[in-house]
């Protein structure tokens, strides 16, 4: 469905019905690089300001520890990749009024979702990587949070942008649904007035199918976007892939463009499969 989801009605009502004026928030970590939590930890002054607006009851990396506490708002980083995580995410959901998944790992499985495409499952890899594979408990897949529990708001990106997170948080504190902008990166790239690297250099830029949010960083550095924010709304991946082929990429290289950080996201998965078969 291409229609933007602006309304998060039930969960928002639950959030707005919280008894205490200061919301209680938690930041949970699943399989991830910790980079998305840094949106908070790197926020500097804003982090201290936040601590005055809300009670941060659980945020292991920043210190507060109470993983099982009931909260109003839970931020979840990371994908679900072990049996323990599959259970823990249920507890997190049960304990929060509103759940926001942050980052590519949580919204699409992230980079580690590449394991989902391994023919012999993750087990095969465990054997290859570990001396004692029997010590490793891992699922065959790394999947987005929304494949396990109901998610009320998804913030994409690897990593999420701090501005994105704080704007969403501010809107939730106002009691309204955050704006989720799923426009293509090109829209922002042009606002920033970068010279298009696809047109001017023939680079296989993923911008035309990628969700905006980063501020068009890669084109700002004169390089092609590698889609760390995942698919935009209404992405015409097929037309872009054909264009990449026209730029001289082999089918296998075209396939890889869609098979990196958000490989598990349906729009990219389909395109990867298609070009994988051609190569």
């Amino acid at each position, binding site marked *: 469905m291409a229609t933007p989801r602006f309304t998060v009605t039930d969960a928002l009502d639950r959030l707005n019905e919280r008894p205490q004026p200061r919301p209680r928030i938690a930041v949970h970590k699943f399989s991830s690089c910790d980079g998305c939590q840094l949106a908070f930890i790197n926020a500097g002054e804003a982090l201290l300001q936040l601590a005055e607006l809300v009670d941060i009851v659980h945020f292991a990396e920043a210190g507060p520890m109470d993983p099982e506490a009931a909260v109003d708002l839970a931020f979840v980083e990371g994908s679900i990749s072990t049996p323990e995580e599959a259970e823990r995410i249920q507890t997190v959901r049960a304990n929060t009024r509103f759940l926001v998944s942050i980052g590519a790992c949580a919204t699409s499985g992230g980079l580690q979702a590449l394991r989902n495409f391994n023919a012999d499952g993750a087990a095969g890899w465990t054997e290859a990587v570990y001396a004692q594979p029997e010590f490793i408990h891992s699922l065959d897949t790394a999947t987005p949070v929304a494949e396990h529990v109901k998610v009320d708001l998804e913030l994409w990106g690897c990593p999420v942008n701090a501005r994105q997170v704080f704007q969403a948080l501010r809107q939730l504190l*106002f009691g309204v649904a955050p704006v989720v902008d799923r426009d293509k990166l090109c829209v922002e790239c042009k606002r920033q*007035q970068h010279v298009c690297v696809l047109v001017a250099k023939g680079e296989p830029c993923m911008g035309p199918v990628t969700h905006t949010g980063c501020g068009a960083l890669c084109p700002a550095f004169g390089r092609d976007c590698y889609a760390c924010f995942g698919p935009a709304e209404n992405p015409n991946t097929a*037309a872009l892939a054909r264009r990449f082929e026209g730029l001289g990429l082999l089918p296998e290289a075209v396939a890889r463009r869609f098979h990196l950080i958000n490989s598990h996201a349906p729009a990219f998965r389909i395109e990867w499969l298609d070009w994988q078969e051609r190569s």
Partner: protein
Amino acid sequence: MQSTALFLPRSSLDALIQALRACGYERVLGPVARDGAITLQALDSASDLPVGVRDRQEPGQYRLGHGEGERCFAWANGPQALKPLTFAPRETLWRCERDAEGGLVFRDAGERNVPTAVIGVRACDLAALKIQERHFLKAPYPDPRYAARRESLFLVAVHCSHPASTCFCASTGDGPRAETGFDLALSELDDGFVVTSGTERGAAVVERLELDRASPAQTAEADAEIEAAARQQVRALPSRNLRDALYARLEHPHWDQVGRRCLSCGNCTAVCPTCFCHAEQDEPALDGSRTDHLRQWDSCFTAVHSYMGHFLVREETRLRYRQWLTHKLASWHDQYDRSGCVGCGRCIAWCPVGIDITAEVEALLEPTDA
């Protein structure tokens, strides 16, 4: 106002830049080759200009290269016209502060516009500027921000002598000669420029340079180059008014065909010098005490453009493309008495998949059985 043609030797180009500064234009912008394209940047001196640089533009492709000689305007337009200077890609419209009692105070964002001279404006850019002025400054709600920014500009046009393969301004009647709307206009010859002024303030700037009159041979050469430029154009729109033809083809099967190629990425609308769609958004401070109300470029290719809560008026790409094309080439006639296309060809060159408006129109006009 039509002034006498003067001649500015190439070596005096710096003097022109100085004269503009002396007349109070704190910022002098001009073409600079950067990141593989010719873009408007602040000029320190004439040596920043793209001397000997040539461009090659094709659908979905733009490349810079090097040519012969000293000329620094021997290229067609770059990725943006004047639009970003008058219609800002993102700006704060106003700020609002909320006091402890909940009272709201709305304030101006207080942005100051630097008096700016722009060298190298093309005929198509001027035509587009005039269209946008009509849009943003129309009664009863002229936009004061647009007005102030427009007011702060001094425009030095350069008549086109090197159109790209993507240009078709001759067919829309908007170029390659800059007819009006400039303060000064230049025609580049090998050893210098034929200069005419279009306004009093333009004349005041050149007066400082104490230039000789251009010789008849020089003006003749300049005219010949412009005429040749018109003849060189390989693309064209079939008519200056396609309104009825397009309105009659709203259900043409070709919309599906182009819908399959189009990325709906909005690049065409962003580079189009006449597109004006924008969206507004609030950006409150974390502590909630104040908020900025922003406006930023939007595009009829985005979902939010036609968002109506329970549905999108234009969900499918073909409908978004049709909205764009029929607005540009048809309903613009109803709104502003002319087409919204000035033939600059940017949407062709800067479309990542090279969709060509002239070719799409041609396909739409072809008779079908449907």
